[in-house]
């Protein structure tokens, strides 16, 4: 055993190989998508998956995706953005406030709340979709954007994350100091707590955003009219056109649409990555 120098940790070949494999594994579908989004429908049916299909039709496909069916793709994109901004945004705010409250305040019934939240983490939202539908139907909210947004506001997992994070990241001494200085609870939350919680909030925001952006089953059963569909359900409907009698496959538009659908998520990750990482390393070394 050689002693390790502090500055240069030993390279592990096995690990590098495993990570390289993993990298290939994750990137191949993406590469496939990029290549095939640039093919025309006939080229899709005549060339193999990972080879380029003669002509470069990406911009053509994008044009068609935007105009097909009176430009409904834009409408779906708008719906998705609406559901994400209001739903995931709201979920992040609620999870942050509630998580902090549960972490830092002592009140009767706290344990019961804890149990309920933990239980809620364990229940897949899909299992609740049909009961939620019946409930919303009674309220007359089905087939409206609210039917997708309201359930998205609840993120037990996000709440739990903030709770765990706040318990550690916000020293009680800090809150006491603020109280002694005469700050009210709300002001403490807005000026002291939020800043401390940024990495946690960004994580929850990313998490709920991805969840809402990719949400499929809930909008599928809540919405019957295509004009309220998010991209996931809309693209699936395009994909289903390839089936059965009178099929009209538009795989090229499904692929291009899927590519366009993941771009905003990638951008969001790249933008938020900074906050997230800087927050994670801050304070990890004793000054």
């Amino acid at each position, binding site marked *: 055993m050689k002693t390790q120098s502090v500055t240069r940790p030993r390279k592990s070949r096995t690990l590098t190989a495993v990570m390289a494999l993993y990298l290939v594994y994750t990137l191949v579908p993406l590469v496939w998508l990029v290549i095939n989004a640039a093919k025309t429908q006939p080229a899709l*049916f005549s060339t193999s998956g990972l080879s380029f299909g003669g002509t470069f039709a990406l911009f053509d496909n994008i044009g068609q995706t935007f105009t097909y069916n009176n430009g409904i793709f834009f409408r779906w994109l708008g719906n998705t953005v609406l559901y994400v901004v209001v739903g995931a945004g709201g979920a992040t705010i609620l999870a942050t406030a509630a998580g902090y409250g549960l972490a830092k305040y002592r009140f009767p019934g706290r344990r019961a709340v804890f149990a309920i939240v933990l239980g809620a983490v364990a229940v897949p939202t899909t299992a609740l979709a049909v009961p939620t*539908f019946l409930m919303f139907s009674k309220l007359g909210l089905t087939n409206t954007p609210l039917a997708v947004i309201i359930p998205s506001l609840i993120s037990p997992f996000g709440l739990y994350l903030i709770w765990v994070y706040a318990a550690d990241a916000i020293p009680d001494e800090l809150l006491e100091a603020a109280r002694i200085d005469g700050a009210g609870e709300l002001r403490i939350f807005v000026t002291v707590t939020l800043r401390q919680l940024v*990495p946690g909030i960004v994580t929850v925001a990313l998490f709920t955003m991805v*969840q809402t952006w990719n949400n*499929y089953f809930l909008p599928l059963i809540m919405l019957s*009219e295509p004009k309220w569909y998010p991209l996931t359900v809309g693209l699936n*409907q395009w994909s289903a056109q390839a089936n059965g009698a009178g099929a009209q496959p538009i795989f090229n538009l499904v692929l291009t649409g899927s590519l366009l659908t993941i771009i905003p998520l990638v951008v969001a990750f790249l933008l938020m990555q900074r906050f997230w990482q800087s927050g994670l390393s801050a304070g990890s070394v004793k000054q």
Partner: protein
Amino acid sequence: MSRTRSRAKAFAAVALAAALAVGCSSGGSSGPAAATGTQDSVDAALKAGGTITYWSWTPSAKDQVAAFEKEYPNVKVNYVNAGTNKDEYTKLQNAIKAGNGAPDVAQIEYYALPQFALTDSLVDLDHYGFGSFEKDYSASTWAQVKNSTGLYGLPQDSGPMALFYNKEVFDKNGIAVPKTWAEYVDAAKKLHAADPTKYLTSDTGDPGFALSMIWQAGGRPFSVDGKNVKINFADPGVKKWTANWDQLIQGKLLAPVKEWSDDWFRALGDGTISSLVTGAWMPGNFMSSVPGGSGKWAVAPMPTYDGQPVTAENGGSTQSVVKQSGNPALAAAFVRWLNHGNGVQPFIKSGGFPSTTADLTSPAFVDEAVPYFGGQKINQVLTQASKDVAKGWTYLPYQTYANSVFSDTVGKAYLNGTGLDAGLAAWQQALVDYGNQQGFTVSAG
């Protein structure tokens, strides 16, 4: 700040996205009782006008609705594509259960019709005197919309089965058009041996196809009498099909290509898959999605076990009036126009295969030489097939659920070659259990 941030560190590893799509729903029924009357009340409703909602995913629906509104300007049809087959059924089932939100008229495939009819969710069109239309439809489609309790829709398209084959590949490899299933298996062996890149057909396990094949072989696995259901996947007809089809699965003679995928369309175009046994609605798909096969494909009668002509239905839909409708007479009027009036022609133009005897016997339709099929008069074969459909077939009153668990059970036989009989037995067990949980009285055998 001396606190450790190990918890925070753990955050970096949080990259979860669990979204399991588990679709399930079960139906009760509710809604107001249907009005009764004759065709007079339907005509009166048309005169009075109003608004109805129509759920459908057929490509011709949009044009049909536009044509209908032009003909009847005082009726507004709110056309919604609520999803393709099972997506639509899930929504329909939920809306029926909730007591609101269902359309007035819905497209429902024949296999799913019993489950909506049995839960009393659809209007019996006999109330509007539509029973008198019986002679205007092929016997096999009428049998699928009418049962002992009522008439639950008017047939739109149908799918009597036939053999579509790639003549070019057949000729090149010296394959004769198989007339019996034994010849079909031999042809599969011969072709794949002659050219290992080619397969006679593909089948990755499709419940609709399997049931149609069983139907043709004389198997009648389901019998339904009200809430009493019998399931038997061991009858001689079923065994006939499994013994034959297992040879293709276990001999690795089926192309490993998923139906309706881009690969599949490609394989149909380049000769990798050189025949298909499927419904009469397939030609339209060939023309629109398999340009590479133009001039190469031809149509022949479906192979049989003893050389005597017999077929089954594969696919096809009806339009039904939902009980929840606030204006069932107007909804019925729209259904009548769609499938017994001026709606039929635009449907046929879009490549659909009709159910109406007038069209199935019109010389213009029957004797049409189709350029894609090298000028063959394919409708002669297909209309004959619609006459040869075997009688007495019944679907389960929870067929959509049944189809959704087909791949978990029978799918194994396709994957591992463990024999279709064992797979069907597992399916049967799952269906008996589920049916009993749902309040049916289900027995096996």
